[in-house]
Each structure stands twice: as C-alpha cells, then as structure tokens.
C-alpha cells in the first residue's frame, strides 16, 4: 500500500447561502508506504490528521487530492465493483473501542461471520467452520461463538474484532488505537496476539496510535504527524535512537516511563508550551514553530520540506 501526497480539506461554510469561507486542512500532503508483512504507525495527537488518513485508506473519506496505490494499482481508477471485489475485502479494520464497534444484539458467531456472508458465496457450513477457526486463532473457544458481546471483557471483545477483521484473509489491516481502550495487563496480551497473527498470515498493519511505547513495540516504520503533515518518517529503531524533529523529541520525552530511561537515551525532559494550532488556519512557515523550543526566525517564513537525511530517515525541519 502506498499513499502519495494525500490531502483532505473540509470546507467551512457560513451564512445563509452556506458559502465556503475557509478550509480545514485535516490532511495536507501525506505520503507513506506500508510493506507486505510490515507495520507502519501513524503517530500524533488529536487533530494531527492520522484518523483522516486512515479513513481515506478505508474509503470512508474521499481524499481531496493525492492517490492511494494498493498492490501497485491506483484505487481511484477502480470501478465500484472492482473495489468491492478486489480492494475492500483485502483491507480491513479494527476500531479503538470494542464497546461500540459491535452490534450488541448479534451473537459472536454472526459478528465474525458477517464479512463472509456479505462478501463470499460460502455455504452455511463453510462459514460456520471458518468462524470457529478464526475464534481459535485469536485465542477464543468454540463455546464463545453463541454468546453476545456484553458477556465478554474488553480484551476478549478486541479479540472478536480481530477475528472479524481477519475473516476475509485481508492483506492490510488498519488498527485504529487497537489497545488504548484496554487495561494495562490486557494490552500486552492483545499486542502479542497482533504480532503473532502478523507473522502467521504475513499481514501488513497500518497502526494509528498516540502511545509511543506501543508504537515501538508494534511497528517497523513510524510516521510522526503534526497538524496534517508528516514531520518525521523513519525505521522504528532509527527513530527512537536518533529522533531529529523537535516535536518527536518532545513526544518521546512525554512518553518516558522513568527519568532513568530519558538519561539513557540522552533526552532532556521537554515540556512544550502552547497547544496545537487550528488546522483551519495553520501557522505560516513551519507549522510547529509556534511551539518549538528551537525555532529560528526563518522557521516562521519557510515551510521545511520532508527531506531524506540518509537511510530513508526523513525529517521536516531546517535545523535537523
């Protein structure tokens, strides 16, 4: 999967005639690559545009411009029937909140079977067999199939959601904050499960996350987003050992477990001032300069390009 210069701008309308008075630049020129069997994480705070990017991938939002290539084909050139047969079944999702992503009145059996019934012509028996196979893969038992979602804990529900996402043998799964609604001791179980399934099925993951520690554990490549743009993009280990963008450094500092870790990585505790500006009216020049602790006068005028500083490590900062 490859995203090229994706933009999503929402119009802001006002007045009696609902004239467009401005644009919210939710995603503003984002490019990324998810390799087969690998994980790319989009990291950022609320309003960074990570969810909008994921929605574009899931065809829940039509990008204003830019293209998405799936296994080499531009999906904007596919017909609706092609999308239905060649794209949608191959790209599935697991949502953040397992309490709202499932119909409480459906049995687990039917929840997991739904994609199979809608997308394939399998017989009832085949569907039944596949459901049990899926439940086993995510660590649930056959007897769970006839229960309702409310009978399960958060971690188990997330397992059901994973089983549903895997039903059609997708090649890419979008994981939108897959563990942030779960308790600490349960998170580890689900993260381990997701990794095992990735190895087993050679799955690609596009992970949306705000927790950096989760990201380091789960991903091969990380893209740090700020105000609709990617500010740093690198292999996971490279990013954590050699963060270059001031925003990345601040995020890492904010997610440190202990002070000892910070000193080991040579990171000074950083507390940023202010908040993320509105995407309706992003600051000129570098979008981060209003909160940057290293901002120079020229940062106010020139928007930095996302440039390669070696080994595929890209950063959008003139100082790096």
């Amino acid at each position: 999967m490859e995203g090229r210069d994706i933009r999503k701008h929402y119009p802001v309308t006002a007045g009696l005639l609902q004239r467009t008075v401005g644009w919210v630049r939710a995603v503003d020129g984002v490019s990324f690559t998810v390799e087969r069997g690998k994980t790319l994480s989009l990291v950022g705070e609320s309003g960074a545009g990570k969810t909008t990017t994921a929605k574009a991938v899931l065809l829940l939002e039509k990008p204003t411009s830019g293209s998405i290539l799936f296994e080499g084909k531009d999906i904007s050139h596919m017909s609706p029937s092609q999308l239905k047969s060649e794209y949608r079944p191959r790209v599935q999702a697991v949502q953040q909140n397992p309490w709202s992503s499932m119909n409480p009145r459906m049995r687990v059996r039917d929840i997991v079977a739904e994609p199979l019934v809608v997308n394939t012509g399998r017989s009832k028996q085949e569907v039944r067999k596949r459901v049990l196979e899926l439940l086993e893969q995510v660590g649930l038992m056959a007897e769970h199939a006839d229960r309702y979602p409310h009978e399960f804990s958060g971690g188990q529900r997330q397992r059901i959601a994973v089983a549903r996402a895997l039903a059609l043998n997708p090649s890419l799964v979008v994981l939108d904050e897959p563990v942030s609604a779960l308790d600490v001791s349960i998170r580890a179980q689900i993260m381990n499960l997701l990794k095992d399934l990735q190895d087993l099925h050679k799955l690609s993951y596009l992970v949306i996350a705000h927790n950096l520690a989760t990201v380091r554990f789960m991903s091969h490549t990380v893209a740090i987003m700020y105000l609709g743009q990617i500010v740093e993009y690198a292999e996971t280990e490279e990013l954590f050992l050699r963060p270059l963008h001031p925003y990345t450094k601040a995020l890492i500092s904010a997610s440190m477990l202990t002070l000892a870790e910070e000193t080991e990585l040579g990171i000074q505790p950083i507390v940023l001032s202010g908040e993320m500006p509105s995407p309706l009216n992003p600051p000129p020049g570098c979008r981060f300069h209003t909160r940057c602790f290293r901002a120079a006068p020229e940062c106010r005028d020139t928007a930095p390009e996302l440039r390669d500083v070696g080994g595929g490590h890209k950063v959008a900062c003139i100082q790096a």
Partner: protein
Amino acid sequence: MSAVVLQVEDLRTSFFTRRGEVKAVDGVSFYVREGETFGIVGESGCGKTVTGMSILRLLPEPAGRIIGGKIVLDGTDLLSLSKKQMREFRGRMVSMILQDPMTSLNPVYSIGDQIAESVRLHQQLPAEDMVREEVISSLRLLRIPAPEMRLKDYPFQLSGGMRQRVVGAIAMSCHPRLLIADEPTTALDATIQAQYIALFKDIQERTKVAIIFITHDFGVVAKMCHRVGVMYAGKFVEKAATAELFRSPQHPYTVALINSVPRLDRKDERLYSIEGQPPSLTDLPKGCRFHPRCSSALERCTHQEPPEVEIGREHSVACWRTS
C-alpha cells in the same frame, strides 16, 4: 519531614447489590504528607476511584457504604462528621479533579461563574469584587492566559487542556489541604499531559497541597508521584517510594504490570503478559487475590491471605514470597 495531612486506616467500602456485597475497597491504609503526591495505580475495577470517593464521602447511596476504617484529615475524622459538616469540608479542605473536563464542567455556565460558585460557597467573602479577585487569582494559579478575558468564556470555547485547567482552578480556588486527582491527564494528549503535570508540580511547590493521584499509567506515576501504592482487587499489594518501586518491585503483580508496559528505551520482541483477568469482586478467590494469575504462587497462597509487611523504609508488600 512535613506533617501528615491525610491518614487512611483500614478503609473498607462495600456496595450492597442484589448480587450480594461487592467489596470494592477492602482494608486500605495509607497517608499523604503536606506537599507530597501519593499515587494510586491499578486497573479498572481495582477500587482506586472508590477509595477517592470514600475520602470525599461521595459514594452513591444507599448502595455504597463505608463499613469500616478511619479517614483522618488534619486531625479530624471525616467519618465522624455529619453530612452538613462534611459539605463544609469539601472544597475548603479537600477537593477533586475528575478525568473528563467535558462532563465535570457545566456547559451552560461561564467558567467565571463556575469557579465563583465554589468560592462563594466555601469562603464567606463580604463583597462580590473580592469573589472576582479570588476567581482571577485561581485562574492565574493554573496559568490560564489573560484570566480577566476568560471569565465569560464557556467550556466549549476552550481546548481540552484549558478545560482541565479550569477544573483545576475550581479545585484549587478555596486553597484545599488535600486534592484528589482521579485520572486528570488521561483524556489529554501527550504533550498537553506533560504540561499539566509540570503545572501541578509547580502549584504543589507553591501551595504545599497534598495530592492523591489516581491513575493506571505508570508513566504519569513516574513523573508526578513521590510515593505509590499498587492496588489489586480492592487492596494494596505494594506501597513504596516511586524510584524504589521502579528499581526493585517486589510483588509479582507490580513486576508484571511494569514489565507488560512496552519500553521506549529498548526494543521488546515480546511483551510480558499476565494471563487471565482481574477477579470479580463478588466472587474473590480464596487466599491471595492474585494467586490464580500469579506465575510464582505457592501452595500457601491458595488458602491464606498474605498480610502487608514492611520490608524497608516506606516499602511494604503483601506477598508470601517476600515475607
């Protein structure tokens, strides 16, 4: 060493439901000193919030009742106070910050009015402009920019971080001795969370307020708390100074919790995971509550409950393996 502001001894809080007694808090003891932050860490349902609510005596009645123990705040046993006396204590002596500012603030009142409400209620000030002064000074304490201009703003006009500061301003407006903060940073973004924590450390330095910090996030604990208690199924399993707890955790649950959080300073191939789930509080396992999930459980753990034992200065553990 600073004076002890709050002393909780063997607190027991239960909910009486149709399915029987739910022992949400089952014999919890701790203290907080002036200018100190005591963290209560645990997963959902371990009783950390109920502990906070019990101190404020804000349990949902009649189901929730404190059935035993002592809560002594600045020499007064809160459990001996009448409802009316307790009302006076709240806000003035002890206040609270909740997780979600969007639900703890009233959407149809300006923030100035909401802060003024608690000032009027708890500090009998003779004139309205003195109330206004107090409101502005509490906004200033929380470093809300241009407080005079903000008084007429409504919650929806503020960002999440600013709203949580307003909640903080209400809590601090009457200069309480004790502040109970229940997951105050959970709804905030990472960099805003860091700001909020830095701000509260500074406020604590200036006002010497004692803080009980309830959270599930060890990262926040490391940055904010002086001492921590780890709760499991209604009890503390371990209490220690923060640095000590991270350096040498003793209880298997503490060890497992710390290990199951992925680390930033190294690449984990696989996360340590605790199998199973916390027990139901209506049907607690016999013996140590953690034994069904414990990888190093002894025979004794299955039928005898381990007592909390002091194993070092301010470090106590409830586990048969260490005692």
